[in-house]
């Protein structure tokens, strides 16, 4: 179980390879990678966070996921700072004995990261910089867990 909050880019493929190396008790590994999507006109995404609380909030969410789905392991990486379109924002990896648990835990972690980890996205376009508004659907997504 690990949490990494960093401004540096990371390589999702290398993370996936390192994550499950040399283990034979894992049957299913699910990964989610969030990428800065260019909907047209996006020049950059700036991500602000709350150092200290971020790591603590993510670790708490991971402990809950580990227990609820009997995970063998999980990893959350989340960047902050300046990101260009096409760059990776964050990644979640879960490992379990069976696929259902690995999928559910990954979706649970994503839903919590969206609304409960202290990150704030700001989109920079030619027209200026705008804080991304939280979506009702993201808040609603928490209710399924």
């Amino acid at each position: 179980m690990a949490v990494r909050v960093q401004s540096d880019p990371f390589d999702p493929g290398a993370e996936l390879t390192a994550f499950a190396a040399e283990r034979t008790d894992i049957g299913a590994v699910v990964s989610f990678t969030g990428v800065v999507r260019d909907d047209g006109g996006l020049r950059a995404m700036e991500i602000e966070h709350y150092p200290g609380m971020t790591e603590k909030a993510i670790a708490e969410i991971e402990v809950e996921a580990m227990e609820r789905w009997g995970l063998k392991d999980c990893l959350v990486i989340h960047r902050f700072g300046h990101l260009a379109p096409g760059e990776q924002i964050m990644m979640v990896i879960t490992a379990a004995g069976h696929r259902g648990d690995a999928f559910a835990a990954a979706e649970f972690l994503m839903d919590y990261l969206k609304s409960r980890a202290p990150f704030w996205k700001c989109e920079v376009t030619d027209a200026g910089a705008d804080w991304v508004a939280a979506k009702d659907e993201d808040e609603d997504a928490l209710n399924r867990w």
Partner: protein
Amino acid sequence: MIDVLYFAWVRERIGLSKEKVETSAETVAGLVAELKAREARYEAAFADVSALRVALDQELSDFDAPLAGVREIAFFPPMTGG
């Protein structure tokens, strides 16, 4: 003395990311009322607290929570991680 932190557009409106505040407020809402009384920029930042979230010592909390024993309080908009 309590450390007060501001993030995202709350930080931008107030023009500060962190300050130390001397307060006798008993709850978060009491502190917010004191801050709003200070200056227009605080009034603007806290105009609609339903659009804000608060964390006490790095744990999400509520505006009616007591401040006793709290060392660090943070105000910010709903999170948009992931």
